[in-house]
């Protein structure tokens, strides 16, 4: 029996007087699929890192209370035995691997847990086959897509064969097909291989019929509660209702009137693989255009071309002038990219320094300090002036990033997965901020998002990216 028992567990970050985890008492049952949900930044990751034995080792201070695997307190497990009890999958697909290729990473894992070399080939072949990635065996990890990387991460976990698997929002940046597939693989591991699955996610899609238990981390009491069937059903129903856009989108007129970015004879083929070919395509001024399409299809690459990060064929005109004729800074002031990875946007150390930089370099005076302070407070980001930006949770980083780019208030804002890692409430607040920037300050927005629910009020046009082309569509 490897119930994971959390007993009288309390944790607060160093230099903080608020508990993020407050007197937790719960049991993740053996051979169950447990889902842990709750708003972003509520402390789900922290608990999982403790269960995986990474904390307190990689954080400044320890928690009080205990975590036990069956009868064994995690503190009594020697460092070299931890991985015999628990394996972990992280949120960021890019930061899970130490080696260059898939096969090297997998042998590295098996060597670490002292598997006999003679058995390794068999284990690796089986693990890769289980995850459906036999073909990726010799690939260089850096060249894989996010979804492929997470499959490799799962293959490593399968190879390690630990009884407990914890996953920290593992699907936050991968395409829907990979996500559905991986969730079913996890279910298979639980049902047919006796694993205990503890998964943190705030996106509840695909879980309802699969999970055994639903835990909710309440952001106000900082406690975790096991929901009964009805309560869980309510959460799922509530989430379902947020997942669709039933709106009928308008189609832009075919003319160039109001077009702010014009693509002509445009071809995008980095590494000689054609991603996108457009004879003629316009993005329209003071409109929010949503671009949807499967992962890895080239949406972010298109943004890189629009911001002059990548070479392309044909012309892109901004305001009737080819963008090649703009100087880099002058162009960046007009067409600005909100990076998918929030950390990439940060240039300073603390929250206040970050905001000050935006105020210093902003392109206009549209936002007042009071207005920004109010926006931050609405997002639950007040009183964090001196916090180091890198110590914020993923959701908080995203919120700060969006606010600081709103302060810049560029005429065209490209947003690459801006809602990744945000709970629904924060998402609604942010779409309202974006709508304000558009309506009041005339901003043009182009959004790439897998997250669709809650965007209906913001989005004007919808373009689908498939078969190497972009097409405006009325329905989703």
């Amino acid at each position, binding site marked *: 029996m490897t119930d994971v028992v959390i007993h009288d567990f309390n944790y607060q970050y160093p230099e903080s007087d608020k508990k993020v985890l407050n007197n937790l008492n719960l049991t993740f049952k053996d051979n169950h699929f447990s889902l842990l949900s709750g708003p972003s930044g509520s402390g789900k990751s922290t608990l999982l890192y403790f269960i*995986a*034995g*990474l904390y307190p*080792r*990689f954080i400044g201070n320890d928690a009080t209370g205990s975590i036990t695997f069956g009868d064994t307190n995690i503190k009594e497990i020697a*460092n*070299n035995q931890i*991985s015999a009890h628990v*394996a*972990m999958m*992280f949120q*960021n697909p*890019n*930061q*899970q*691997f*130490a*080696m*260059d290729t898939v096969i*090297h*990473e997998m*042998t*590295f*894992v*098996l*060597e*670490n*847990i*002292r*598997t*006999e*070399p003679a058995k*390794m080939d068999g284990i690796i072949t089986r693990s890769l086959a289980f995850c459906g990635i036999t073909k990726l065996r010799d690939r260089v990890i*850096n060249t894989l897509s996010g979804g492929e990387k997470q499959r490799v991460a799962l293959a*490593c976990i399968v190879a*390690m064969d630990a009884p407990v698997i914890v996953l920290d929002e593992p699907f936050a940046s991968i395409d829907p097909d990979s996500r559905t597939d991986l969730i079913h693989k996890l279910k298979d591991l639980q049902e047919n291989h006796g694993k205990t699955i503890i998964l943190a996610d705030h996106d509840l899609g695909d879980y309802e019929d699969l999970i055994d238990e639903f835990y909710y981390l309440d952001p106000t009491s900082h406690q975790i509660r096991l929901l009964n069937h009805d309560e869980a059903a309510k959460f799922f129903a509530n989430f379902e209702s947020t997942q669709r856009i039933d709106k009928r989108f308008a189609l832009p007129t075919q003319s160039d009137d109001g077009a702010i970015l014009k693509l002509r004879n445009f071809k995008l083929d980095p590494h000689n693989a054609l991603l996108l070919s457009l004879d003629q395509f316009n993005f329209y001024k003071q409109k929010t255009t949503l671009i949807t399409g499967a992962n890895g299809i080239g949406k972010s690459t298109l943004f890189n071309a629009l*911001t002059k*990060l990548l070479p392309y064929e044909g012309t892109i005109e901004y305001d009737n002038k080819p963008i090649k004729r703009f100087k*880099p*800074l002058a162009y*960046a*002031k007009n067409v*600005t*990219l*909100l*990076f998918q990875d929030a*950390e*990439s*946007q940060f*240039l300073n*150390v603390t929250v206040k320094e970050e905001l000050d*930089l935006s105020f*210093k*370099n*902003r*392109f206009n005076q549209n936002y007042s300090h009071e207005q920004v302070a109010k926006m931050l407070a609405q997002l639950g980001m007040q009183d964090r002036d001196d916090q180091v930006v*890198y110590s914020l949770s993923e959701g908080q980083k995203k919120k700060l990033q969006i606010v*600081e*780019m709103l302060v*810049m208030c560029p005429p065209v804002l490209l947003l690459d997965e801006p809602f990744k890692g945000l709970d629904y409430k924060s998402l609604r607040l942010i779409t309202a901020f974006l709508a304000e920037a558009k309506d009041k300050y005339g901003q043009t927005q182009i959004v790439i998002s897998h997250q669709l629910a809650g965007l209906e009020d913001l989005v004007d046009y919808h373009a689908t990216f498939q078969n190497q082309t972009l097409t405006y569509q009325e329905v989703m």
Partner: protein
Amino acid sequence: MNPGMKLLLVVLIALEISFTQSLVVNCILIAVCFVYIMVKRMNFKTLFMLIFWPMFPAVGLFVSQWLYGSAGIHFAWVLFTRIYAYVFLGATFTLTSSITDLALTLEQDFRLPSKFAYGVLAAFNLMPKIREEVQIIKTSALMRGEVFHVWSPKLYFKAILSSIQWSQNLAEAMTSHGFVEDEPRTHYRIIRITGLDWVTFVGLFVIVQAMLFLIKY
């Protein structure tokens, strides 16, 4: 040849020619290394780079020694060829050995702590990402209304921040993949130093000694 032995040999020879002044031996070393990397099929672009870039320091050293030094033109040529000897010696190692094999042999045969061997390897595997990261940092700065040049301290500050973050994430990833410092591990691929490795190593080393002793010009 075992990559660890190769590295050791290259470093030893490079050290030695730093303290000797034999023009002929330098030239022989360059020629032998050249043949070795050609046999190992190096492309011509890399070869061009190998000859082109060291030209600046090599010519610089040559000219300053020739015009302003007191040891004469022979020593100027020694300095010139020495630079190329270093470059080609280095190339025989870097162009023909795998960094993974080096890490494996350092851990298994040279008894280096596995933490060090894999730490270096993991950092090496991050190299392409570091190059990408610098480009991203520059673009990101533009988006915030700042221009970063190669000499901007903030560029380095940000790059260092990123690497600190990465090193933490990497340590967590390695730990979660079962890696524990100073604990025994098994080895899928055993890399041994063979008798042939020793014979090659000692043989080449002795030949270089003999040349340095006999050929003084």
